[in-house]
């Protein structure tokens, strides 16, 4: 781990958290703390110096921290976020979508070597991309040659097989909206699914409504997905949600060139912009 052991990183996190709180400009530091189970940690808001000592760093720190910055959109004080590579991309995403102000954030970046989480295997950004202070030495990034392998394999099935597969998956969905609430690209002030009186989204958790929800969400976040895998991790019914959003990303890469989201550049999301020379299939 980039020169530092897990315990050393944890000490550094606590130290930086205390420093941040001591400035008086930060209301809380968002990180992880232990639970009663050894292999689970939970997101934690440390608000006092003593609580900073409850922050932990280990391979089970899998929850995204970035989304918690949205809990208070008009904060009186800054909020400090302990950010791995994916969390920093989440923050970039929300900054780009103008949901957050950079001056309201204090980002404690931590170089991450992957967690006990399947999505980490394909991680292309172990180093935080945006931070105020960095813990650990930056490591060399890996290019994931298999980024769309799963999608390509699925595309080879027949249309009927694909439809059946998704229909069965959407039958399982219980409409808990955990995927939406965990997703840093799902940052609308009010989700269309919560405006159910307008008739966009029915409340019943049947196949019909689940298909609408699943495809709408996949499409809506498809060009802004940072591939953190939170949607799939949080799903209590184990729906392969990333398989939909990654399909969008794959097509975007094929049609409009190399594309990755949540980088510090100021690029507009694909569906929020256009180019005159875009390919045209509708002539």
């Amino acid at each position, binding site marked *: 781990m980039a020169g530092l052991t897990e315990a050393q990183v944890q000490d550094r996190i606590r130290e930086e958290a205390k420093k941040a709180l001591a400035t008086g400009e930060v209301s*809380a530091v968002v990180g992880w*703390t232990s*639970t*009663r*189970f050894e292999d*689970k*940690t*939970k*997101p*934690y*808001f440390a*608000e*006092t*110096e*003593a*609580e900073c*000592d*409850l922050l932990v760093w280990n391979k089970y720190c899998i*929850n995204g921290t970035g*989304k*918690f910055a949205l*809990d208070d959109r008009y904060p009186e004080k800054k909020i400090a976020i302990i950010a791995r590579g994916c969390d920093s991309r989440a923050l970039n995403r929300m900054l780009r979508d103008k949901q957050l102000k950079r001056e309201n954030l204090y980002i404690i970046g931590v170089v991450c070597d992957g967690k006990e989480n399947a999505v980490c295997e394909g991680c292309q950004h172990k180093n935080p991309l945006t931070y105020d202070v960095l813990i650990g030495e930056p490591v060399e990034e890996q290019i994931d040659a298999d980024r769309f*392998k*799963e999608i390509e*394999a*699925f595309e*080879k*099935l027949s249309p009927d*097989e694909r439809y059946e*597969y998704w229909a*069965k*998956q959407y039958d*399982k969905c*219980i*409409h*808990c*909206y*955990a995927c*939406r*609430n*965990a997703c840093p690209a799902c940052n609308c002030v*009010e989700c269309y699914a*919560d405006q*159910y009186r307008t008739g966009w989204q*029915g*409340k*019943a*958790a*049947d196949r019909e409504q689940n298909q609408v929800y699943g495809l709408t969400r996949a499409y809506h976040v498809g060009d802004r997905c940072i591939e953190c895998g*939170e949607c799939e*991790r*949080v799903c*209590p*019914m*184990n729906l392969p949600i990333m398989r939909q959003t990654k399909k969008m990303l794959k097509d975007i890469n094929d049609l409009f060139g190399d594309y990755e989201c949540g980088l510090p550049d100021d690029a507009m999301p694909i569906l929020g912009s256009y180019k005159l020379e875009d390919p045209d299939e509708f002539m």
Partner: protein
Amino acid sequence: MKLAKKDLNKALEILSAGAIVFAPTFEMIEDKSEGGQTMAEKKFMPYKEGMFIALDGPNTVKPPKDILFPNVEKMYRYKTGVNAEIQEIIPEDTKKILFGIRPCDMRSIDSMDKVFLTKEYVDSYYAKRRENVVTVAFGCTEPERTCFCDSMGIDPNNAPSADVMMNVAKGSNGDAFILEAYTDKGKELLEQIKSLDGGAGEAQRDTKCQLQINKDPELDKKLAGMFEHPIWDKITKGCIGCGTCTFVCPTCYCFDIDNENYGAEGCKYRCWDSCMFSDYTRMAGGANPRPTKKERLRNRYMHKLSYFNERYGETLCVGCGRCVANCPSHLDISEFIEKATAADPNAETYTDAPGKEA
């Protein structure tokens, strides 16, 4: 009576002649793409010939409550305009057997019975389904690490309100079960599978929950005075506000009523709702008495641990551990119970790191 494990399918075969038998099994969804994995989900499904019955092991992800209280229940169909009419939809009169539900889930059905059938109001949809259900409870053999029902006053080995109680036979190493009828419905059920009776035997009832928690026996009364306690601010921070805990909970019974229109006709249905959603308490004018996740999670915990006691005299949390196992943020109601038990109800501030020297 004694039933050998190898006769389990035979027994369900006999029972399914006169009823739909719901038993825990694995539903497989095959991913036919290259390198794809077949996904298995443990759930209650109608018995089919040769079905694998997953009695032991972890409990199902979704509770069996949807057999009595379906996720989407159509209430009536209607036509509008000149030929306006209303056509009521009454649940089918099919006998159902709920086979192999755990004592925690059986207790949850007791709680739902109280809600839907007592206090001078009878929910006709629920009542209709309930009277057609026979329950066969199965004493836990391998509680999960998230199970804490015995701390909530439930015996993982015995479900007193079940129609039939089923336990592993002592000394059989899981190869035989002892079935005991508790009600007339249960006696009738055992009568049907009498031919498989392997004689007498003693039930093994020594399972203990893995998770033992320290709960104040008067926690409901203590919490009633802690509505404004600073603990709520602290413990709700990590919540992401999804509805997972309520939908996997065997005792969450809230529903919403909505309709779906197709031209001049439509259907009124009711479906599960979750108090964790922003529109749950939102009023027509837009005001929301529970504006943030703090108020919503507080309501959920208070309902489970205090409000329900006030109205029905029992705790609504049955300790099945589903919300503990499935919470995206790894929040833990058992941890809250311990923290609330230890907390000073009159404290002005709350910290997770008390007594630590700065």
